[in-house]
């Protein structure tokens, strides 16, 4: 298995060397040469203007399964405190689109306890079927019970696609289920499309910190599993239609899980609601220190904006956890988003990309945040923000 360079076609342009994240290509006599530390990631193949790079490998595939037996799209619900999470609804809206293209059923798989009275309301979200697995213990999330139930359901019902929220919960059981079924799983997809000829799910995801996008497929096995972050797809429109409800009761007890939940601790201090904020001022690592963050707070104050930040600022204790914006935090969509010292890792971008106007202030002209900003300012935020605060104060007093 290796990357092959066609020496006749190679012009020594070195584009492939630029593209290699692993320093695994060098020029030898003006011809590209692949080194042993190549990981076969294929980033170079796309960048070659001469199409001189290809991948060669000996196929030793295990026996193929009949993928045509697998039909239907599933969305696995996530809930906390009896509330279905938005990401599950967003997956239903994407799932509807995929199911219509494939002309199959869309099923919503819900493992829980007290949802009997909610099913009617839930059925307005575009699915054809709700598979409700009811058990008192499933009020909470158990890794092993979820894996067992979902794997058994898949073996029995044979769906071709399963969509799961890329949350700490979804990212916990999805790989375990995938391994048990030997199914392909793609993490954190930002785009899902169908190749109608092969019925393959084309799963696009950011990789290498968002600097490269990769489209992944699972050609020879089913189901095709994908996790998707919150805020990537839209919420579904409510529709009234006939939804088949399959209720299956499981007699689980606490001892059926290898793990025991001792307690759940909530760290929410206040009723921060940055999801609905009109203005947000957010800081990143570039702010420099906890003391430095005061200036961000002051800017937020004068603008009547909510304060936010990237994950690192929470990890460094500069900011409360419920103000974290991004993949593992909140998804926001304000009218104005001012990003101060935020480099713009894709994990942050997915939390704020729906903002109407984005202003980015960063020292580094190459920071990826500028790819997402309407107005970019290259400079020291500690010099610019004080002037900005004065100006906003002036504007406010004029009003």
């Amino acid at each position: 298995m290796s990357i092959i360079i066609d020496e006749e076609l190679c012009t020594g342009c070195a584009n492939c060397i630029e593209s290699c994240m692993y320093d695994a290509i060098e020029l030898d006599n003006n011809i590209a040469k692949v080194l042993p530390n190549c990981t076969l990631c294929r980033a170079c193949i796309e960048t070659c203007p001469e199409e001189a790079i290809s991948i060669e490998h000996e196929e030793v595939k295990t026996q193929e399964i009949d993928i045509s037996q697998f039909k239907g799209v599933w969305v696995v619900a996530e809930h906390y405190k009896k509330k279905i999470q938005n990401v599950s609804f967003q997956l239903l809206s994407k799932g509807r689109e995929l199911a219509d293209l494939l002309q199959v059923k869309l099923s919503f798989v819900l493992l829980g306890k007290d949802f009997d009275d909610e099913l009617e309301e839930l059925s307005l979200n575009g699915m054809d079927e709700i598979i409700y697995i009811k058990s008192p213990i499933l009020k909470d999330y158990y890794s092993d019970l979820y894996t067992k139930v979902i794997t058994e359901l898949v073996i029995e019902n044979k769906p071709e696609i399963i969509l799961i929220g890329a949350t700490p919960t979804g990212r916990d059981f999805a790989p375990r289920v995938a391994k048990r079924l030997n199914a392909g799983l793609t993490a954190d997809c930002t785009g899902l499309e169908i190749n109608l000829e092969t019925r393959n799910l084309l799963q696009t995801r950011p990789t290498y910190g968002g600097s490269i996008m990769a489209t992944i497929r699972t050609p020879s096995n089913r189901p095709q599993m994908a996790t998707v972050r919150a805020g990537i797809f839209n919420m579904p429109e409510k529709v009234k239609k006939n939804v088949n409800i399959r209720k299956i009761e499981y007699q689980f007890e606490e001892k059926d899980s290898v793990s025991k939940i001792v307690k759940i601790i909530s760290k929410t201090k206040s009723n921060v609601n940055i999801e609905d904020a009109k203005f947000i001022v957010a800081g990143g690592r570039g702010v420099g220190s906890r003391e430095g963050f005061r200036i961000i707070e002051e800017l937020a104050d004068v603008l009547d904006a909510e304060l936010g930040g990237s994950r690192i600022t929470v990890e460094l204790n500069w900011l409360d956890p419920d103000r974290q914006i991004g993949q593992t935090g909140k998804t926001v969509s304000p009218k104005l988003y001012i990003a101060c010292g935020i480099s713009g890792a894709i994990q942050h971008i997915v939390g704020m990309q729906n903002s109407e106007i984005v202003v980015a202030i960063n020292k580094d002209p190459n920071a990826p945040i500028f790819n997402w900003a309407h107005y970019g300012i290259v400079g020291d935020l500690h010099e610019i923000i004080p002037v900005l605060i004065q100006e906003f104060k002036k504007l406010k007093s004029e009003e």
Partner: protein
Amino acid sequence: MCIKQVPGVSEVKIDPKTNTLVREGVKSIINPNDRNALELALTLKEEHKVEVIALSMGPPQAEEALREALAMGIDRAFLLSDRAFAGADTLATSHTLALAIKKILKEFNSEEKYLIICGAQAVDGDTGQVPPELAEELGIPQITYVQNIELSEDKIVVERKFRATEIVVIETKLPALISVLIDINKPRFPSMVGIMKAYEKANVVYFDSNALNADKSKIGLNGSMTEVEKIFFPERKVNPIMIEGSAEEIVQKLCQYLKNDKVF
């Protein structure tokens, strides 16, 4: 514990003019999150007198990552390296790691009681899928996204961050696997003595596919269910208007733009 050598991606940027990767001073590093796994393993070693074994899969140059782990204080290091392992997705990777772990546990006679520690995710692939898949393959419980752990004779009690503001405390018996978050601890630096020992005395043991008795259809590209259809550079969402000048000029211009956009 498992570690991965990754490119220093925080240094990788897109050149906005040519839309190509700019790789200034990029070198391979231990995946930052795996340093937290290393630190935790070393803390547990000090408190409980356990032996710490580090495992990595990658090209021969990944030995550098294991040498660094040895310098930090781990006891033994194993590198799974073979062209046949290359191109693996998470299913094939977890299978290969599991083969090696089973072999090592057998050699050390500790199949009954062990703890596997991984970083929650790697900065290059960033899937976080290998830890649960590895636990499944080993047939042991997993607890992912851990930010605190107490180890006792035959069980662990951990704090798992399952939402931005919520933690669940979970208890499970050993053997088990945990994946740790970056905020669990502050990784130490290798000491001078550690570095000398790691390079002069310590030994990194290599396993290839034969040593693991691996089924060729379950490793590398062949063992992967997923495959890459294409790779491309992300499109810029907008072309930013770059505002230049003195701080005063910048602020004046910005406010004018925002007024025109009817933000205020």
